[in-house]
């Protein structure tokens, strides 16, 4: 085996992210997460599936660094660390709402992360234009969020997340507020982007169908306290066209995930 290939094989062995015994207790005493262990590989598309209150959004916040775990550790084995010992994983976050600045045009919104990083105006606007183009919004650079539909705003939000070329994209129920048609179109487009740019995705959802359509791996979570209940593999090849949604294999995976989810929710009832 040539050295380069060996090195790359070794590198891909190393996970991008590991959570070890991560727990989170809020100041009001609620235990939101208990002993979560999770390894996320380079380039993986992983969904966190679970009922509301199972701590999936909290886990995403901890991974993003917006909140700190009460115990346990979140490690980025392949990322740089700054002088304070904090990881600088190259990550982006897509919130449930588009979270666009209403006073800024679509291009200015997308260019915001680059502006904050100190990039010059011509360069960041051209990068923002490319990013808008990649989500199918070429020609909408000067439109204001108010003028865009819900689906288009979410596309701008995704473009903003991708404009920094992140290694990992954290998505917190990004399409939950959209209608079925817009949602499945955005799912298709997200998969295309993922296949083209090869970033890692952690996708929080409460939809079994969405998680089976999108991901390679589904981590099912249970509530009270939030914990990992099952770790399922969806070993179907990509590209997954829309027609994948009507195949028996897809139905079988959905069945399996639903059962796992029911078990996770049954756990809750057992506790209550």
């Amino acid at each position: 085996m040539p050295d380069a290939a060996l090195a790359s094989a070794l590198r891909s062995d190393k996970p991008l992210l590991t959570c070890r015994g991560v727990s989170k207790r809020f100041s009001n005493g609620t235990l939101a997460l208990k002993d979560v262990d999770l390894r996320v590989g380079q380039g993986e598309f992983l969904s966190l599936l679970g009922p509301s209150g199972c701590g999936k959004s909290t886990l995403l916040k901890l991974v993003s660094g917006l909140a700190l775990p009460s115990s346990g550790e979140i490690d980025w084995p392949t990322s740089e660390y700054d002088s304070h010992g904090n990881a600088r994983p190259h990550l982006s976050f897509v919130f449930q709402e588009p979270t666009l600045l209403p006073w800024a045009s679509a291009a200015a919104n997308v260019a915001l992360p680059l502006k904050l990083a100190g990039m010059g105006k011509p360069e960041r606007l051209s990068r923002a234009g490319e990013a808008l183009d990649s989500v199918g919004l070429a020609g909408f650079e000067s439109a204001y969020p108010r003028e865009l539909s819900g689906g288009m705003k979410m596309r701008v939000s995704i473009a903003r997340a991708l404009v920094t070329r992140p290694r990992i994209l954290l998505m917190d129920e990004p399409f939950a507020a959209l209608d079925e048609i817009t949602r499945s179109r955005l799912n298709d487009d997200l998969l295309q982007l993922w296949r083209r740019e090869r970033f890692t995705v952690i996708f929080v959802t409460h939809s079994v169908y969405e998680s089976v359509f999108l991901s390679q791996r589904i981590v099912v979570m249970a509530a009270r306290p939030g914990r990992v209940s099952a770790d399922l593999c969806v070993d179907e090849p990509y590209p997954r066209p829309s027609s994948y949604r009507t195949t028996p294999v897809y139905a079988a995976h959905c069945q399996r995930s639903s059962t796992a989810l029911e078990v996770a929710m049954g756990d809750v009832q057992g506790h209550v």
Partner: protein
Amino acid sequence: MNKAAGDDLAVDVSARESNAVTASRWPRILAPIALGVAFLLLWTAIVRVKGIQPYILPEPLLIARTLVSDWHTLSGSLWITLSISLAALCAAVVLGLLFSILFTQSKWLELSLFPYAIVLQVTPIVAIAPLIIIWADNVTVSLLICAWLVAFFPILSNTTLGLNSSDHNHVNLFRLYRASRWQTLWNLHLPTAMPYFLGGLRISGGLSLIGAVVAEFVAGTGGSASGLAYRILESGYRLQIPRMFAALTLVSLCGIAIFACLTLVSHLALRRWHESALRTEN
């Protein structure tokens, strides 16, 4: 993702068109003018029919004639009152913005200073004006301080509220991208506070004129200032009632002009994005 979402496009176009709708504007201008003209005609009719003397109630035409004949004196006073109001408003904007920004940077500063800002606001200006006039050597400076005192608070309190109103998700977004304090202030908190600030500005615009006039009334009895309020007092003493009305008209016009300018500024600043400046079609 090379194709733009088809059904999304329709939404966008209609939203843009509804922003451009400018029809049905005439009633907004004509209705108040018609009412004003009717009011002036009624006024004239009453004065003429009842034979009311000009030193009790002059008719509108006489007030207009006085405005023209005394224009030389009145315009000087107008200029003084207007420049004091505007200078006080500018000072209120600068200091109001400065203090509200300081307040958001340090909670301690806000907690310790804000009560005193409220004390300044709730103490009636008429009550402190004599003191200020005694303390300040220069009459213009004392008028300026009085007008500033009343114009300052609305800008301070509105902008402070606005600076604390940033969307929680936006704040998280800025934290994720490791924005510095200054970057977050400039790119997030200040734009969020803009509509609040402009609302405060419109209130302060009117108040700065009121503050200037009230202070002139207090100082004017000393006979050393010659703003519009002093003209009103002087005309009152001399029973030159038409001139009193002419000065009063100018004070009102000043207030209207300030309000109209600030409304225009507010509209220009917010028309692209804020709910208050957008027209929607259902």
